[in-house]
Protein backbone atom coordinates (compact mmCIF):
# COMPACT_ATOMS: atom_id res chain seq x y z
CA UNK A 1 0.00 0.00 0.00
CA UNK A 2 1.28 3.47 -0.79
CA UNK A 3 1.24 6.29 1.71
CA UNK A 4 -1.36 8.04 -0.43
CA UNK A 5 -3.72 5.06 -0.09
CA UNK A 6 -3.09 5.08 3.62
CA UNK A 7 -4.11 8.71 3.85
CA UNK A 8 -7.26 8.10 1.86
CA UNK A 9 -8.19 5.31 4.21
CA UNK A 10 -7.69 7.42 7.28
CA UNK A 11 -10.93 7.81 9.23
CA UNK A 12 -10.60 11.55 9.63
CA UNK A 13 -10.00 12.30 5.99
CA UNK A 14 -13.59 13.22 5.17
CA UNK A 15 -13.97 15.69 7.96
CA UNK A 16 -10.96 17.92 8.32
CA UNK A 17 -12.86 20.38 10.49
CA UNK A 18 -13.75 17.86 13.19
CA UNK A 19 -10.23 16.56 12.98
CA UNK A 20 -8.80 19.99 13.77
CA UNK A 21 -11.23 20.59 16.62
CA UNK A 22 -10.44 17.21 18.10
CA UNK A 23 -6.73 17.95 18.04
CA UNK A 24 -7.13 21.33 19.69
CA UNK A 25 -9.37 19.73 22.35
CA UNK A 26 -6.66 17.23 23.21
CA UNK A 27 -4.04 19.94 23.13
CA UNK A 28 -6.11 21.92 25.67
CA UNK A 29 -6.71 18.90 27.93
CA UNK A 30 -3.04 17.95 28.00
CA UNK A 31 -2.00 21.55 28.56
CA UNK A 32 -4.44 21.81 31.49
CA UNK A 33 -3.05 18.63 33.05
CA UNK A 34 0.54 19.77 32.71
CA UNK A 35 -0.30 23.21 34.12
CA UNK A 36 -2.11 21.85 37.18
CA UNK A 37 0.52 19.22 37.95
CA UNK A 38 3.34 21.73 37.53
CA UNK A 39 1.60 24.26 39.82
CA UNK A 40 1.30 21.51 42.42
CA UNK A 41 4.96 20.61 42.08
CA UNK A 42 4.03 17.03 41.16
CA UNK A 43 5.87 16.94 37.85
CA UNK A 44 9.03 18.41 36.41
CA UNK A 45 8.39 19.68 32.85
CA UNK A 46 12.09 19.12 32.14
CA UNK A 47 11.58 15.43 32.94
CA UNK A 48 8.95 15.29 30.19
CA UNK A 49 11.47 16.86 27.80
CA UNK A 50 14.04 14.25 28.83
CA UNK A 51 11.59 11.38 28.29
CA UNK A 52 10.65 12.65 24.83
CA UNK A 53 14.28 13.18 23.89
CA UNK A 54 15.12 9.63 24.97
CA UNK A 55 12.56 8.11 22.61
CA UNK A 56 13.23 10.55 19.78
CA UNK A 57 16.99 10.16 19.76
CA UNK A 58 18.25 7.23 21.87
CA UNK A 59 15.81 4.34 22.11
CA UNK A 60 14.49 3.23 18.72
CA UNK A 61 14.49 0.39 16.20
CA UNK A 62 18.23 0.74 15.54
CA UNK A 63 18.68 -1.04 18.89
CA UNK A 64 16.70 -4.02 17.67
CA UNK A 65 18.44 -3.98 14.29
CA UNK A 66 21.79 -4.37 16.06
CA UNK A 67 20.40 -7.32 18.02
CA UNK A 68 19.30 -8.97 14.77
CA UNK A 69 22.59 -8.28 12.98
CA UNK A 70 24.54 -9.85 15.84
CA UNK A 71 22.21 -12.87 15.88
CA UNK A 72 22.75 -13.34 12.14
CA UNK A 73 26.52 -13.11 12.49
CA UNK A 74 27.23 -14.96 15.71
CA UNK A 75 25.59 -18.37 16.33
CA UNK A 76 26.51 -18.23 20.02
CA UNK A 77 24.66 -14.94 20.40
CA UNK A 78 21.65 -16.35 18.53
CA UNK A 79 21.62 -19.29 20.91
CA UNK A 80 21.80 -16.91 23.91
CA UNK A 81 18.85 -14.98 22.47
CA UNK A 82 16.85 -18.20 22.25
CA UNK A 83 17.61 -19.23 25.82
CA UNK A 84 17.69 -15.84 27.61
CA UNK A 85 16.77 -12.95 25.34
CA UNK A 86 16.57 -10.43 28.19
CA UNK A 87 20.21 -11.05 29.18
CA UNK A 88 21.49 -11.31 25.61
CA UNK A 89 19.84 -8.01 24.66
CA UNK A 90 21.00 -6.35 27.90
CA UNK A 91 24.59 -7.29 26.97
CA UNK A 92 24.28 -4.71 24.15
CA UNK A 93 23.08 -2.08 26.63
CA UNK A 94 19.37 -2.28 25.72
CA UNK A 95 17.42 -2.57 28.96
CA UNK A 96 14.61 -0.96 30.82
CA UNK A 97 11.05 0.15 30.36
CA UNK A 98 8.97 -2.28 28.28
CA UNK A 99 12.00 -4.49 27.71
CA UNK A 100 12.23 -6.04 31.16
CA UNK A 101 11.19 -9.52 30.00
CA UNK A 102 12.25 -10.13 26.40
CA UNK A 103 11.67 -13.11 24.11
CA UNK A 104 13.21 -13.45 20.64
CA UNK A 105 11.32 -15.49 18.05
CA UNK A 106 13.11 -16.62 14.91
CA UNK A 107 11.65 -16.70 11.42
CA UNK A 108 12.60 -19.82 9.45
CA UNK A 109 11.95 -21.05 5.91
CA UNK A 110 8.92 -22.90 7.36
CA UNK A 111 7.45 -20.35 9.79
CA UNK A 112 6.80 -16.60 9.85
CA UNK A 113 6.24 -14.88 13.20
CA UNK A 114 3.98 -11.88 13.82
CA UNK A 115 3.60 -9.95 17.09
CA UNK A 116 0.48 -8.13 18.28
CA UNK A 117 -1.14 -6.93 21.48
CA UNK A 118 -4.89 -7.39 21.01
CA UNK A 119 -5.72 -6.03 24.49
CA UNK A 120 -3.68 -2.82 24.58
CA UNK A 121 -0.38 -1.65 23.09
CA UNK A 122 2.35 -3.90 24.56
CA UNK A 123 5.52 -3.42 22.50
CA UNK A 124 9.24 -3.95 23.14
CA UNK A 125 10.25 -0.31 23.68
CA UNK A 126 13.82 -1.14 24.72
CA UNK A 127 14.63 -2.55 21.27
CA UNK A 128 12.05 -0.89 18.97
CA UNK A 129 11.28 2.41 20.69
CA UNK A 130 7.74 3.79 20.71
CA UNK A 131 5.16 1.82 18.74
CA UNK A 132 3.71 3.23 15.51
CA UNK A 133 0.09 4.43 15.53
CA UNK A 134 -1.19 1.47 13.49
CA UNK A 135 0.22 -1.03 16.02
CA UNK A 136 -1.98 0.49 18.76
CA UNK A 137 -5.09 0.99 16.60
CA UNK A 138 -8.16 -1.28 16.25
CA UNK A 139 -7.59 -2.51 12.67
CA UNK A 140 -4.23 -4.19 13.38
CA UNK A 141 -5.19 -5.37 16.87
CA UNK A 142 -8.44 -6.94 15.66
CA UNK A 143 -7.19 -8.58 12.47
CA UNK A 144 -3.67 -9.82 13.25
CA UNK A 145 -4.96 -12.90 15.11
CA UNK A 146 -7.67 -13.90 12.61
CA UNK A 147 -6.41 -12.68 9.21
CA UNK A 148 -2.64 -12.23 9.40
CA UNK A 149 -2.19 -12.88 5.68
CA UNK A 150 -4.63 -10.08 4.86
CA UNK A 151 -2.78 -7.76 7.24
CA UNK A 152 0.58 -8.68 5.72
CA UNK A 153 -0.75 -7.93 2.22
CA UNK A 154 -1.42 -4.37 3.38
CA UNK A 155 2.27 -4.11 4.27
CA UNK A 156 3.19 -5.41 0.82
CA UNK A 157 4.20 -8.83 2.15
CA UNK A 158 2.86 -11.96 0.43
CA UNK A 159 3.94 -15.21 2.02
CA UNK A 160 3.88 -18.58 0.23
CA UNK A 161 0.55 -20.34 0.85
CA UNK A 162 2.28 -23.23 2.58
CA UNK A 163 4.28 -21.06 4.97
CA UNK A 164 3.14 -21.42 8.57
CA UNK A 165 2.24 -18.26 10.45
CA UNK A 166 2.59 -17.96 14.19
CA UNK A 167 0.98 -14.96 15.84
CA UNK A 168 2.16 -14.00 19.32
CA UNK A 169 -0.47 -12.08 21.29
CA UNK A 170 1.41 -10.15 24.01
CA UNK A 171 -1.16 -10.73 26.75
CA UNK A 172 1.33 -10.76 29.66
CA UNK A 173 4.55 -8.88 30.42
CA UNK A 174 6.76 -10.75 27.93
CA UNK A 175 7.82 -8.55 25.03
CA UNK A 176 8.61 -10.14 21.67
CA UNK A 177 11.13 -9.27 18.96
CA UNK A 178 11.05 -11.17 15.66
CA UNK A 179 14.44 -12.17 14.25
CA UNK A 180 13.77 -12.03 10.50
CA UNK A 181 15.46 -14.40 8.06
CA UNK A 182 18.86 -13.20 6.88
CA UNK A 183 18.73 -12.04 3.26
CA UNK A 184 20.79 -13.94 0.69
CA UNK A 185 24.12 -12.53 -0.45
CA UNK A 186 24.96 -10.79 2.83
CA UNK A 187 27.88 -13.02 3.86
CA UNK A 188 30.45 -10.23 3.49
CA UNK A 189 28.56 -7.49 5.33
CA UNK A 190 29.66 -6.29 8.75
CA UNK A 191 27.25 -5.78 11.67
CA UNK A 192 26.38 -2.18 10.87
CA UNK A 193 25.73 -2.94 7.19
CA UNK A 194 23.55 -5.88 8.21
CA UNK A 195 21.66 -3.71 10.69
CA UNK A 196 20.86 -1.32 7.81
CA UNK A 197 18.76 -4.12 6.26
CA UNK A 198 16.67 -4.71 9.38
CA UNK A 199 13.50 -2.64 9.30
CA UNK A 200 11.31 -1.97 12.31
CA UNK A 201 8.44 -3.83 10.66
CA UNK A 202 10.62 -6.90 10.09
CA UNK A 203 11.10 -7.11 13.88
CA UNK A 204 7.30 -6.92 14.46
CA UNK A 205 6.72 -9.44 11.68
CA UNK A 206 4.78 -7.09 9.40
CA UNK A 207 7.79 -6.91 7.09
CA UNK A 208 10.85 -8.82 5.96
CA UNK A 209 14.49 -7.72 6.10
CA UNK A 210 15.50 -5.71 3.04
CA UNK A 211 17.54 -7.42 0.29
CA UNK A 212 21.33 -7.09 0.24
CA UNK A 213 21.49 -4.22 -2.25
CA UNK A 214 19.79 -1.89 0.24
CA UNK A 215 22.76 -1.68 2.64
CA UNK A 216 24.16 1.84 2.86
Amino acid at each position, binding site marked *: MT*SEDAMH*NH*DDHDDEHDHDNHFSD*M*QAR*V*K*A*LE*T*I*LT*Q*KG*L*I*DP*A*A*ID*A*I*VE*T*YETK*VGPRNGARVVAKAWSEPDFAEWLRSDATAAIASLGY*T*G*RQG*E*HMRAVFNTPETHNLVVC*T*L*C*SCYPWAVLG*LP*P*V*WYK*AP*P*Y*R*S*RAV*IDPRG*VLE*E*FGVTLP*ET*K*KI*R*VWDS*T*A*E*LRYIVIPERPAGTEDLDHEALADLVTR*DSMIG*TGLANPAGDAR
Partner: protein
Amino acid sequence: MNGAQDLGGQHGMGPVAPEMDEPYFHAEWEKRALGLTLSCGAFAAWTIDESRHARESLPPATYLSASYYEIWTRALETLLKRHGFVSAAELAAGQMLEKGSEPKRILTADMVPAVLAKGAPCNRPVSAGPVFAAGERVRTKNFNPETHTRLPRYARARTGIVEAVQGAFVFPDDNAHGKGENPQWVYTVVFDAGEIWGEGADPTLTVSIDAWESYLERA
Protein backbone atom coordinates in the same frame (compact mmCIF):
# COMPACT_ATOMS: atom_id res chain seq x y z
CA MET B 1 -13.73 -6.93 31.32
CA ASN B 2 -15.47 -7.41 28.00
CA GLY B 3 -14.65 -3.87 26.93
CA ALA B 4 -13.76 -2.19 23.68
CA GLN B 5 -10.09 -3.00 24.28
CA ASP B 6 -10.64 -6.72 23.69
CA LEU B 7 -10.28 -6.46 19.93
CA GLY B 8 -8.92 -9.83 18.77
CA GLY B 9 -11.02 -11.20 15.91
CA GLN B 10 -13.48 -8.29 15.67
CA HIS B 11 -14.54 -7.28 12.18
CA GLY B 12 -15.23 -3.93 10.57
CA MET B 13 -12.29 -1.96 11.96
CA GLY B 14 -10.99 -1.16 8.48
CA PRO B 15 -7.57 -1.37 6.86
CA VAL B 16 -4.36 -1.15 8.91
CA ALA B 17 -3.12 1.85 6.91
CA PRO B 18 0.59 1.80 7.75
CA GLU B 19 2.14 5.23 7.35
CA MET B 20 5.38 5.61 5.40
CA ASP B 21 8.18 7.26 7.40
CA GLU B 22 5.85 7.74 10.33
CA PRO B 23 7.04 10.44 12.76
CA TYR B 24 7.40 9.51 16.44
CA PHE B 25 4.69 12.03 17.31
CA HIS B 26 1.88 13.55 15.26
CA ALA B 27 1.34 16.62 17.45
CA GLU B 28 3.18 18.41 20.24
CA TRP B 29 0.53 17.38 22.78
CA GLU B 30 1.36 13.72 22.16
CA LYS B 31 4.89 14.34 23.46
CA ARG B 32 3.53 15.94 26.62
CA ALA B 33 0.96 13.13 27.01
CA LEU B 34 3.75 10.53 26.90
CA GLY B 35 5.84 12.43 29.43
CA LEU B 36 2.90 13.13 31.73
CA THR B 37 1.81 9.49 31.73
CA LEU B 38 5.30 8.29 32.65
CA SER B 39 5.87 11.10 35.17
CA CYS B 40 2.61 10.38 36.97
CA GLY B 41 3.29 6.64 36.85
CA ALA B 42 6.43 7.45 38.85
CA PHE B 43 4.24 8.60 41.77
CA ALA B 44 3.86 4.85 42.50
CA ALA B 45 0.23 5.58 43.45
CA TRP B 46 -1.16 3.05 40.98
CA THR B 47 0.13 0.02 39.08
CA ILE B 48 0.45 -0.59 35.35
CA ASP B 49 -2.48 -2.99 35.72
CA GLU B 50 -4.70 -0.31 37.23
CA SER B 51 -3.63 2.00 34.36
CA ARG B 52 -4.63 -0.58 31.77
CA HIS B 53 -7.97 -1.07 33.47
CA ALA B 54 -8.58 2.70 33.52
CA ARG B 55 -7.90 2.80 29.76
CA GLU B 56 -10.18 -0.12 28.91
CA SER B 57 -12.93 1.36 31.13
CA LEU B 58 -13.36 4.31 28.79
CA PRO B 59 -16.74 4.27 27.02
CA PRO B 60 -16.39 1.99 23.97
CA ALA B 61 -17.28 4.75 21.49
CA THR B 62 -14.58 6.97 23.00
CA TYR B 63 -12.03 4.16 23.13
CA LEU B 64 -12.53 3.11 19.51
CA SER B 65 -12.38 6.63 18.09
CA ALA B 66 -9.42 7.86 20.14
CA SER B 67 -5.73 7.71 19.28
CA TYR B 68 -3.69 5.84 21.86
CA TYR B 69 -2.21 9.02 23.37
CA GLU B 70 -5.76 10.27 23.82
CA ILE B 71 -6.67 6.99 25.56
CA TRP B 72 -3.65 7.45 27.83
CA THR B 73 -4.58 11.05 28.61
CA ARG B 74 -8.22 10.33 29.43
CA ALA B 75 -7.22 7.39 31.64
CA LEU B 76 -4.59 9.54 33.36
CA GLU B 77 -7.30 12.06 34.27
CA THR B 78 -9.31 9.22 35.83
CA LEU B 79 -6.33 7.95 37.82
CA LEU B 80 -5.31 11.40 39.06
CA LYS B 81 -8.87 12.07 40.26
CA ARG B 82 -9.28 8.61 41.82
CA HIS B 83 -6.08 8.98 43.83
CA GLY B 84 -6.76 12.56 44.92
CA PHE B 85 -3.99 14.33 43.03
CA VAL B 86 -6.29 16.44 40.87
CA SER B 87 -9.99 17.31 41.19
CA ALA B 88 -12.65 17.49 38.48
CA ALA B 89 -12.99 21.20 39.23
CA GLU B 90 -9.27 21.69 38.61
CA LEU B 91 -9.46 19.85 35.29
CA ALA B 92 -12.39 22.07 34.27
CA ALA B 93 -10.57 25.23 35.36
CA GLY B 94 -7.18 24.22 33.97
CA GLN B 95 -5.63 25.56 37.19
CA MET B 96 -4.63 24.35 40.64
CA LEU B 97 -7.42 25.11 43.10
CA GLU B 98 -6.48 23.05 46.14
CA LYS B 99 -3.74 20.92 47.59
CA GLY B 100 -4.13 17.22 46.83
CA SER B 101 -2.46 13.90 47.63
CA GLU B 102 1.31 13.73 48.09
CA PRO B 103 3.07 11.21 45.85
CA LYS B 104 5.75 8.83 47.13
CA ARG B 105 8.11 10.03 44.43
CA ILE B 106 8.36 12.92 41.96
CA LEU B 107 10.25 12.26 38.75
CA THR B 108 12.80 14.97 38.06
CA ALA B 109 14.78 15.34 34.86
CA ASP B 110 18.00 14.03 36.41
CA MET B 111 16.25 10.78 37.37
CA VAL B 112 14.89 10.05 33.88
CA PRO B 113 17.80 8.13 32.31
CA ALA B 114 18.13 5.75 35.26
CA VAL B 115 14.38 5.23 35.68
CA LEU B 116 13.85 4.43 31.99
CA ALA B 117 16.92 2.17 31.84
CA LYS B 118 15.80 0.24 34.92
CA GLY B 119 12.16 -0.27 33.96
CA ALA B 120 9.83 -2.10 36.30
CA PRO B 121 10.30 -5.88 36.21
CA CYS B 122 7.17 -7.74 37.31
CA ASN B 123 8.48 -11.26 37.72
CA ARG B 124 8.25 -12.42 41.32
CA PRO B 125 9.37 -15.43 43.35
CA VAL B 126 6.66 -17.98 44.19
CA SER B 127 6.97 -20.91 46.58
CA ALA B 128 5.12 -23.56 44.55
CA GLY B 129 6.41 -24.98 41.30
CA PRO B 130 4.49 -24.68 38.03
CA VAL B 131 1.42 -26.94 37.75
CA PHE B 132 1.76 -27.40 33.98
CA ALA B 133 4.73 -28.46 31.89
CA ALA B 134 5.75 -27.71 28.32
CA GLY B 135 3.96 -30.05 25.93
CA GLU B 136 0.86 -30.49 28.09
CA ARG B 137 -2.65 -29.99 26.71
CA VAL B 138 -4.60 -27.35 28.59
CA ARG B 139 -7.99 -25.69 28.29
CA THR B 140 -8.54 -22.04 29.07
CA LYS B 141 -11.38 -21.25 31.43
CA ASN B 142 -14.57 -19.56 30.39
CA PHE B 143 -15.23 -16.49 32.51
CA ASN B 144 -16.49 -12.98 31.92
CA PRO B 145 -15.43 -10.78 34.83
CA GLU B 146 -16.46 -7.13 34.80
CA THR B 147 -13.01 -6.50 36.29
CA HIS B 148 -9.57 -6.53 34.64
CA THR B 149 -8.30 -9.69 32.98
CA ARG B 150 -5.66 -10.51 30.41
CA LEU B 151 -7.41 -13.55 28.96
CA PRO B 152 -8.92 -12.27 25.70
CA ARG B 153 -12.45 -13.39 24.78
CA TYR B 154 -11.27 -15.20 21.65
CA ALA B 155 -9.04 -17.43 23.77
CA ARG B 156 -11.57 -18.45 26.43
CA ALA B 157 -12.72 -22.10 26.60
CA ARG B 158 -10.11 -23.16 24.02
CA THR B 159 -7.80 -26.14 24.06
CA GLY B 160 -4.13 -25.60 23.33
CA ILE B 161 -0.64 -26.81 24.13
CA VAL B 162 1.70 -25.33 26.72
CA GLU B 163 4.76 -24.35 24.73
CA ALA B 164 6.84 -22.78 27.49
CA VAL B 165 6.78 -22.06 31.20
CA GLN B 166 7.80 -18.39 31.29
CA GLY B 167 8.28 -17.69 34.99
CA ALA B 168 6.08 -16.28 37.75
CA PHE B 169 4.62 -12.79 37.36
CA VAL B 170 2.35 -10.33 39.16
CA PHE B 171 -1.28 -11.37 38.56
CA PRO B 172 -2.96 -8.39 36.84
CA ASP B 173 -6.54 -9.51 37.51
CA ASP B 174 -5.91 -8.91 41.24
CA ASN B 175 -3.27 -6.20 41.07
CA ALA B 176 -5.40 -3.89 38.92
CA HIS B 177 -7.91 -3.68 41.77
CA GLY B 178 -5.61 -3.24 44.76
CA LYS B 179 -5.87 -6.88 45.82
CA GLY B 180 -2.12 -7.44 45.86
CA GLU B 181 0.42 -8.81 43.41
CA ASN B 182 -0.41 -12.50 44.08
CA PRO B 183 2.15 -13.76 41.53
CA GLN B 184 1.39 -16.85 39.45
CA TRP B 185 3.20 -18.92 36.85
CA VAL B 186 2.76 -17.71 33.27
CA TYR B 187 2.70 -20.08 30.30
CA THR B 188 2.83 -19.55 26.56
CA VAL B 189 -0.13 -21.53 25.24
CA VAL B 190 -0.48 -22.10 21.51
CA PHE B 191 -3.76 -22.80 19.70
CA ASP B 192 -4.52 -23.95 16.18
CA ALA B 193 -6.51 -21.25 14.38
CA GLY B 194 -9.25 -23.85 13.78
CA GLU B 195 -9.76 -24.23 17.54
CA ILE B 196 -10.29 -20.48 17.87
CA TRP B 197 -12.02 -19.45 14.66
CA GLY B 198 -13.60 -22.73 13.53
CA GLU B 199 -14.84 -23.11 9.98
CA GLY B 200 -12.77 -21.31 7.39
CA ALA B 201 -9.80 -20.70 9.70
CA ASP B 202 -6.37 -20.37 8.08
CA PRO B 203 -4.92 -23.93 8.31
CA THR B 204 -1.36 -22.57 8.41
CA LEU B 205 -2.07 -20.30 11.41
CA THR B 206 -1.33 -20.83 15.09
CA VAL B 207 -1.90 -18.16 17.74
CA SER B 208 -0.36 -18.02 21.19
CA ILE B 209 -1.23 -16.13 24.32
CA ASP B 210 0.69 -15.78 27.56
CA ALA B 211 -1.65 -17.12 30.23
CA TRP B 212 -1.52 -16.98 34.02
CA GLU B 213 -1.89 -20.36 35.71
CA SER B 214 -5.39 -19.67 37.07
CA TYR B 215 -6.64 -19.14 33.50
CA LEU B 216 -5.88 -22.78 32.71
CA GLU B 217 -7.07 -26.27 33.52
CA ARG B 218 -5.78 -29.62 32.35
CA ALA B 219 -7.47 -30.77 29.13
